[in-house]
């Protein structure tokens, strides 16, 4: 049922550089990306996008998760207080939602915080479960880099979150949690977030010669990506003629 809107808004093309409708909000910051970004946000020539899934951009583009502060009476676990006092300025914000604690931290301090969280006995986060990214294109610091940590000894979880801009590199935590190696590679592959100090930052899931980072929100969902990115009107015409050919 959610696919129904897909049919009328169809291609992502209208959100391309040519127009700036209300929904183009999402793509608008996406387009300036290639010139400034380290990795060009262009799909490879003559290679189809991963899936021809025609999905619409959300009706109104959100600028980030709410990150609600902990409710009254919900005191953060001890290690978070200890973290804030041990490394001043390391906790930008604390958030609590459906039972999960999230700490928003500055990207520059991520290594110190990671080391502290791993080594402090009351924290003891020895397992880096996951490293992932959420892309919020309208925001200047568009990527939320999220580290899902777990302590095997203490049996508790926390999420670290840091916000980075498009071409802002993040220090790699592979030296602290070797488990982050492939996870960071995947993030690099899918979002183009650079990790400094990563031993082997290559693409992992996409082919080596792939262009662009497919899980960014402004990555086209269908069609010959280059044409779509460069000249959406032509792409629309092509698509229309193809559809007509199908009907006949």
């Amino acid at each position, binding site marked *: *049922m*959610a*696919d129904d809107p*897909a049919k009328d808004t169809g291609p992502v093309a209208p959100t391309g550089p040519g127009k700036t409708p209300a929904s183009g909000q999402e793509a608008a910051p996406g387009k300036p990306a290639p010139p400034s970004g380290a990795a060009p946000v262009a799909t490879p020539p003559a290679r189809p996008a*991963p*899936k021809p*899934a*025609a*999905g*619409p951009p*959300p*009706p*109104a583009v*959100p600028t980030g*998760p*709410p990150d*609600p502060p902990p409710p009254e009476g919900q005191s953060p676990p001890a290690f978070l207080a200890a973290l804030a006092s041990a490394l001043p300025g390391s906790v930008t914000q604390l958030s609590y*939602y*459906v*039972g*999960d604690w*999230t700490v928003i931290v500055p990207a520059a301090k991520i290594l110190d915080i990671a080391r502290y969280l791993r080594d402090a006995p009351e924290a003891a986060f*020895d*397992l*880096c*479960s*996951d490293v*992932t990214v*959420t*892309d919020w294109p309208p925001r200047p610091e568009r990527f939320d880099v*999220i580290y*899902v940590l777990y302590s*095997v000894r203490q*049996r508790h*979880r926390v*999420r670290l979150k840091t916000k980075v801009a498009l071409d802002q590199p993040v220090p790699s935590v592979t030296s602290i*949690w*070797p*488990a*982050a*190696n*492939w*996870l960071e590679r*995947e993030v690099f592959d*899918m979002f183009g977030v650079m990790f400094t100090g990563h031993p082997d930052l290559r*693409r*992992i*899931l*996409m*082919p080596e010669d792939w262009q662009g980072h*497919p*899980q960014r929100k402004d*990555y086209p*969902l269908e069609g010959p990506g280059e044409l779509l990115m460069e000249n959406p009107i032509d792409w629309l015409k092509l698509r229309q003629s193809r559809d007509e050919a199908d009907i006949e």
Partner: protein
Amino acid sequence: MTETRAGAVTPAVHHGAMFDTNELVLNMGPQHPSTHGVLRVVLRLDGEKVVDADVVIGYLHRGIEKLSENRNWTQIILLTDRMDYVAAATNNVGYCETVEKLLSIEVPRRARYVRTILCELQRIASHCLWLGTHAMDIGAMTVFLYAFRERELILDLFEEFCGARLTYNSMRIGGLPLDIPSGWDRKVLEFCRIMDSKILEYEELLTHNRIWLERTKGIGVIDGPEAVAIGLSGPALRGSGVPRDVRKDEPYAAYDELEFDVPIGAVGDTYDRYLVRMEEFRQSLRLIRQATEGLPEGPIVGKVPRLIKPPAGETYHAIESPKGELGYFIVSDGKSTNPYRFRVRPPSFCNLQGLPRLVRGHLVADVVALIGSLDIVLGEVDR
């Protein structure tokens, strides 16, 4: 690696082939009988000894994460089937529970029990497949067919429950699509009875088999802290003696109401990982028996809104899939009917990451044993 297999052994390369200062590069996969799918491992060999390994994945990448951002919440259940396709029901459960967490829905007790039964059946099915292929990789082909014989019984049970044998799509957000068929619980118990003796049969063929011991003992030894550090989870981690099991540590479904033990290994070699999984067969049967016998009556679906549209927020929820910690990180923007971000923490992916560490210094034959002992499913690694 740009070297192709055909061009690999020109006489000029021969020279490098076997002399200890030079190494032979062997491209194992993506088409290889024992890489369990389209995994490619580029081995640098000194003789038959593995000097280093590079794991190349992505041949089965279907973009499920991206795809899910453009499907509505219910449609995604079907996509999760395609990740770990030998344990589809577990994926369904993990996803549905994550969304339920976002929606703060209470799932009825009966549904949680049935989920537990399905998850554990699925664990047995997955372990059967693991046992069969692992034993096959080491050359014991009979175990493979025995294990598949029993897996067949589980698939029959699933077929009766949801009509499908591999990709079940057997969960709904808030509960189950339908109640269990009448008499199904009896058949499950009957299966448990059969399985009890079959496990003995497998163990008879392998556990004390001299060759099996020689092939698995001391292969790919990894101690607990290091296993945690390189991100192993599930039986691969428990084989190293770390008692980490999401079912115990962060109970979901009905695991907090049921009794079971978490087997752990002592040394952290391939044999320990094997023993852990063999014991998990028994623990799963124990769980299934308890859940089936104590199956509560009641509704099977909780209070789910007609249009599923979780409030804006994000959450991470992990369950214990047969391979390890299967986590879902889902972000909802509260406005659309699609998730804003859908991220899977695939256990196979994270376990496979440890392969180069495990194979270093072992022989080519051990590489296949180790791939088997990590129990990966490429559908999940590549997503």
